[in-house]
């Protein structure tokens, strides 16, 4: 079964050759954009463009018909033709050895009764041809290990370990945009479109088995078969984290969803319970959904609910303490005596002497990294949040760009501050790995000044800083919920 699912999706995510059917010479058409995006990102396999007139597209000659494609040279077809010609096209593709079709063409179930019938016939045809059908009415598919960007929209994300499947194509783009911004990359991404054959459940089954994927991120609006979805999510979440964003939660959203994907909605509280039972974590907002997935692929899971906050920014420490205290799952750990004593040895008495540990400007060259390490290594601390990275180099940026630089000792101090921020970022990154517990960094500079050396250091290492502590804690709640579910629902006798 697991090998079957991998084999079934291989031509979609790791094709030996790709046909763009309906490639266009007109840069405003999807058939042009699809060809452009595939060629633009250096897909290494063979590429065939078909065009009714056999016109040159992007400087490449095209074929007038699928019949001209050498047999066995391509196993994926990306379809941009009008809906009416799709069935004959796929029959021709099957004869050439194509085993997967991504149909971006609109005019199927979303277009009314006739379209719905055409879609059913298309699914039945693909079933008969033994061809995987994705879409119709989808935006495309991305697979970074295969350098495949077969989609009619931007962007192409950095390579990484998050797999995305969405019932709305726009959310694929949004999640990929977040991946570009944070640098936390993506393995596979697919817009399920009308899900005539393969829906979110089928993709989650594949991602669970996919060795390129460590966490799954999905957007759903409505489900034709709720039980099938539940079973797939539960099975997938038993292997890897699954983050779910659900649209149509309120009656207003449900009306919008019904017109968007024609899906029926059930009580949102039932959906919430289903997620809990399956072991998936559910995000409230789009950015929370991405950041939860990004945390899953960049951080270890916490062994418990105790959070310790180390801050050089007092106010942020206070509001973060409020946020953690009101969390339904996380606890603000009262500072253990031995940890307080260890901090006392290194800090002047004006530090907060509690959790959050507010260093109150008493940090010297090594105090922050030392205190981070002390907190991270403490057995009662299950997760660490560091606030205040990048402040000194932000001042450094002001100095570097001002009229007094590099004189007055500015060159040296700016370089020092930048080095310090890189060092602190590096320490947070390394401690998460060596202590096997989450060490999160939050600073608004991640959004306001992404070029700050502290932020850059984290990105360079494949991690990222949250743009606020609230977002970091929301992500940590996902990590905790998932870890806790795994622990408590693990079959007896098996370690989680």
């Amino acid at each position: 079964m697991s090998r079957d699912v991998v084999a079934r999706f291989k031509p979609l995510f790791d094709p030996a050759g790709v046909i763009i059917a309906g490639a266009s010479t007109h840069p405003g058409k999807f058939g042009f954009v699809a060809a452009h995006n595939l060629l633009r990102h250096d897909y290494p396999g063979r590429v065939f463009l078909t065009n009714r007139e056999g016109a040159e597209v992007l400087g490449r000659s095209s074929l007038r018909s699928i019949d001209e494609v050498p047999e066995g040279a391509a196993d994926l077809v990306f379809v941009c033709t009008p809906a009416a010609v799709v069935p004959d096209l796929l029959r021709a593709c099957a004869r050439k050895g194509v085993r997967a079709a991504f149909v971006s063409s609109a005019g199927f179930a979303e277009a009314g009764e006739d379209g719905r019938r055409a879609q059913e016939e298309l699914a039945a045809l693909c079933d008969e041809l033994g061809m995987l059908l994705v879409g119709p009415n989808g935006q495309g598919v991305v697979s970074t290990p295969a350098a495949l960007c077969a989609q009619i929209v931007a962007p192409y994300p950095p390579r990484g370990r998050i797999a995305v499947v969405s019932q709305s194509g726009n959310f694929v783009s949004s999640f990929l945009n977040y991946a570009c911004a944070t640098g936390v990359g993506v393995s596979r991404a697919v817009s399920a479109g009308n899900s005539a054959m393969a829906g979110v459940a089928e993709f989650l089954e594949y991602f669970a088995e996919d060795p390129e994927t460590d966490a799954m991120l999905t957007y759903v609006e409505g489900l034709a078969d709720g039980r099938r979805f539940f079973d797939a999510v539960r099975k997938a979440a038993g292997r890897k984290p699954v983050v779910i964003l659900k649209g149509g939660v309120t009656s207003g959203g449900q009306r919008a969803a019904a017109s968007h994907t024609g899906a029926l909605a059930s009580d949102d509280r039932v959906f919430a319970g289903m997620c809990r039972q399956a072991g998936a974590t559910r995000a409230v907002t789009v950015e929370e959904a991405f950041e939860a997935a990004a945390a899953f692929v960049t951080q270890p899971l916490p062994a418990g609910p105790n959070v310790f906050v180390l801050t050089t920014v007092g106010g942020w420490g206070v509001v973060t303490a409020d946020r953690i205290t009101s969390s339904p799952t996380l606890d603000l750990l009262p500072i253990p005596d031995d940890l307080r004593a260890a901090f006392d040895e290194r800090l002047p008495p004006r530090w907060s002497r509690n959790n959050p540990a507010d260093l109150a400007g008493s940090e010297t060259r090594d105090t922050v990294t030392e205190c981070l390490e002390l907190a991270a290594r403490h057995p009662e601390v299950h997760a660490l949040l560091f606030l205040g990275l990048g402040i000194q180099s932000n001042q450094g940026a002001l100095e570097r760009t001002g009229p007094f630089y590099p004189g007055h000792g500015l060159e040296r101090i700016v370089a020092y501050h930048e080095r310090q921020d890189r060092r602190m970022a590096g320490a947070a990154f390394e401690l998460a790995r060596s202590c096997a517990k989450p060490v999160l960094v939050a600073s608004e500079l991640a959004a306001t000044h992404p070029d700050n050396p502290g932020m850059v250091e984290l990105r360079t290492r494949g991690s990222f800083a949250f743009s606020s502590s609230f977002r970091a804690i929301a992500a940590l709640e996902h990590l905790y919920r998932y870890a806790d579910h795994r622990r408590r629902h693990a079959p007896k006798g098996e370690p989680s």
Partner: protein
Amino acid sequence: MAPEHLVTTADEAVRAAATIGYPVVAKLCGAGIAHKTERGLVRLGLGDDAAVLGAATALLAAARPEDGEVALLISPMVRGTRELIAGCVDDPTFGHCVMLGIGGVLAEAIGDVAFRLVPLTRVDAADMVTDLRHRRLLDAFRGEPAVDRERLVDVLVGLSELVQSDSRIVSIDVNPLIVCDGVPTAVDALIEVRES
């Protein structure tokens, strides 16, 4: 479930009440009666023989032809300051689900309920309790002990098993599930069945 006696006459009702011990509750039951409270078919806190006799006579007289065959249900008056609701619903997307919620007169306004898909494991059932926003109501409260979580899990898992055991069941509504000395006690239930 509270111990109950099903009787058909007022005299039998009095004997049943004496066996159970006062105070008791008397309800008129019948296959065609779904909402007893709305029709005044529940009499609470009956303290002696005379009260039971009067209530039983009045309830039997209130029966309507469309109620079908009716009987009197005599049960002990279960007291507790906390009420829960539990049950099963048939969700259009996910099928049968077990439900647990905070009950009582403010239940609808509070809207604090948790669901799990049938079948439930005991861990799933325990998770439902922690899903409730007002779960602190289930801790020790106003001199009453904490709700026995294991007994509550028994109720939820029992509902899951019940709905699986009989394909005719559409929904189950156990309302209220009164917490009496920490023990969740069902004092009324409605099972909706599908005509075969």
